[in-house]
């Protein structure tokens, strides 16, 4: 029997997940970063005893409270979607997701939620030092929450530390540390939380700049800008470092994503990195159109960043489809890459072997079981390819990945300049007179959100068609439900999340307009 896979269902399910994740991510990065900024401010208050620092801390704490209140629990919806729209996937990932998320629930959530109460209610009720400790624990707790989900995401990008149990049809964790310390997960965690720090720093500078434009709260604004500029600049430099680490991991584990990020169809030795360019619209992997309408590139840099060698071969989309190039495997051996067509064949062999194993088990045929299990294990690394029919389906959306990557990187370098300028104007005491910079600071707030979203588009669109790299494509991960049901909840979410976003912006702008005040939050 052959089942039909409804692509409308797959696409609506993907769109719904993307919508939910992106709205959720509107709230998360500010929380990740502003908690540390608040902790630094309160530390100065406790050290100096200056009541103005307490006032500043309480003001930003209120802003954090608004963001936290509106954003909290929006991520839970993603877990609902796993159970309803992506049930095959949920089962297939097995306890790999279960363990990190359970740790998140027990450890980080309770750490975060308990100490948030002390942070908001504990002024004048607990000692200054205990209050400060609570603030720091909220900062670490919120970042710990991000750790576990990003470890799980890292595993999806590069599945390690597990084996597939053919009887239970799910993956089982063999080595927690291999999952937890996977280089792709570590880089992803560090890069993602640091992007949150940068966003929060820009947010604080932007709001402070608005006060300076209006001639209000000058001391609060200037002190907030100093703290945030230093924090933002250091975070931004670290972001470049972790970005380099992430790109290196992508080159090793997800070469198709790297090719899409660079719009690279024809691989070469000593490949350059595109600084600015426009991929040819409508370009397909098997046509003869040029890759770019125009491009400016830095020669050899992509080879160097991806493989640590200026003359290394970087495979393009066509190479990854056609195979035939040499690469070094994880054991350091030189291998000849096979084509996507061959991977699909291997994947189909793997699925057929799993089917035979299942039938042999039902028929109580141990010889056939052992034989089919051996074939299955040998071909399992290409298991996911067996669900695909066309080699071209392993290519993600190249223009979207390319533009998102270049917007993210371009803005990242702009942010370094931005923080440096902010610090410079603070130290030469010219901040208030530089109205253009103050206006630019306000305008930079949305750019921080655009850069952050672009990063996720690169990470998630760039790894299509996989939900789990090479093992489970979206077409096999989706539940067999009615596409119209997914459409209804898509629009429902659109309404709910838009209402929450409007509420956030409205309450926050009102509070910013009111400014700091005495008393509770």
């Amino acid at each position: 029997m052959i089942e039909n896979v409804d692509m409308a269902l797959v696409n609506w399910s993907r769109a719904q997940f993307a919508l939910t994740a992106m709205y959720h991510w509107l709230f998360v990065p500010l929380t990740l970063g502003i908690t540390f900024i608040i902790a630094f401010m309160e530390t100065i208050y406790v050290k100096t005893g200056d009541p103005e620092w307490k006032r500043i801390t309480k003001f930003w704490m209120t802003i954090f409270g608004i963001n936290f209140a509106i954003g909290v629990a929006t991520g839970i919806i993603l877990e609902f979607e796993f159970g309803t729209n992506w049930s095959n996937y949920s089962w297939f990932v097995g306890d790999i997701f279960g363990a990190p998320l359970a740790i998140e629930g027990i450890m980080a959530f309770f750490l975060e939620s308990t100490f948030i109460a002390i942070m908001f209610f504990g002024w004048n009720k607990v000692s200054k030092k205990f209050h400060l400790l609570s603030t720091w624990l909220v900062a670490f707790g919120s970042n710990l929450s991000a750790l576990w989900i990003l470890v799980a995401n890292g595993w999806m990008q590069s599945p390690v530390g597990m084996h597939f149990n053919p009887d239970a049809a799910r993956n089982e964790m063999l080595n927690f540390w291999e999952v937890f310390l996977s280089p792709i997960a570590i880089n992803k965690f560090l890069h993602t939380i640091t992007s949150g720090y940068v966003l929060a720093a820009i947010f604080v500078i932007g709001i402070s700049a608005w006060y300076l434009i209006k001639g209000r709260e000058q001391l609060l604004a200037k002190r907030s800008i100093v703290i945030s500029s230093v924090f933002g600049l250091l975070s931004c430099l670290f972001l470049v470092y972790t970005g380099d680490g992430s790109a290196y991991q992508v080159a090793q584990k997800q070469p198709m994503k790297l090719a899409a990020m660079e719009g690279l169809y024809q691989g070469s030795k000593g490949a350059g990195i595109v600084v600015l360019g426009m991929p040819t619209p409508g370009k397909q992997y098997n046509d003869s159109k040029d890759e770019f309408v125009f491009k400016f590139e830095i020669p050899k840099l992509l080879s160097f960043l991806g493989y640590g060698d200026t003359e290394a071969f970087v495979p393009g989309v066509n190479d990854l489809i056609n195979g035939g190039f040499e690469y070094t495997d994880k054991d350091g051996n030189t291998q000849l890459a096979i084509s996507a067509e061959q991977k699909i064949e291997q994947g189909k062999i793997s699925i057929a072997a799993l089917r035979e194993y299942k039938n042999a088990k039902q028929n109580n045929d141990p010889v056939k079981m052992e034989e089919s299990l051996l074939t299955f294990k040998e071909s399992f690394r290409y298991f996911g390819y067996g669900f695909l029919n066309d080699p071209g389906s392993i290519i993600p959306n190249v223009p979207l990945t390319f533009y998102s990557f270049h917007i993210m990187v371009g803005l990242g370098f702009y942010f370094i300049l931005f923080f440096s300028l902010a610090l410079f104007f603070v130290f030469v005491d010219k901040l208030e007179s530089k109205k253009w910079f103050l206006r630019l600071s306000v305008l930079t707030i949305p750019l921080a959100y655009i850069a952050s979203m672009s990063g996720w588009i690169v990470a998630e669109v760039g790894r299509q068609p996989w939900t789990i790299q090479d093992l489970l494509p979206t077409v096999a991960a989706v539940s067999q439900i009615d596409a119209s049901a997914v459409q209804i909840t898509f629009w429902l979410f659109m309404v709910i999340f838009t209402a929450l976003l409007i509420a956030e912006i409205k309450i926050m702008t009102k509070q910013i307009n009111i400014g700091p005040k005495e008393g509770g939050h």
Partner: protein
Amino acid sequence: MTIQKNIFKQVFLFYYEGFRSMTLGKRLWIIILIKLFIIFVILKLFFFPNLLKSNFATDKERGEYVLEQLTTPKKINND
């Protein structure tokens, strides 16, 4: 026993007075409660059942179903 009672009372008062003294926080709590109601009561109950949990009683049945899904040849329908 008395010490324990005192600790519980202190924790209760800490939260009680904290919530009472909130100004902006009250509105935020209303938003949080409405949101949690929508998420856990409306969305979860009516729109997002856990398919494998609601359709199958045991993990064995769930595994068998997913195995069947993964090993049945599929044809992609773009209509």
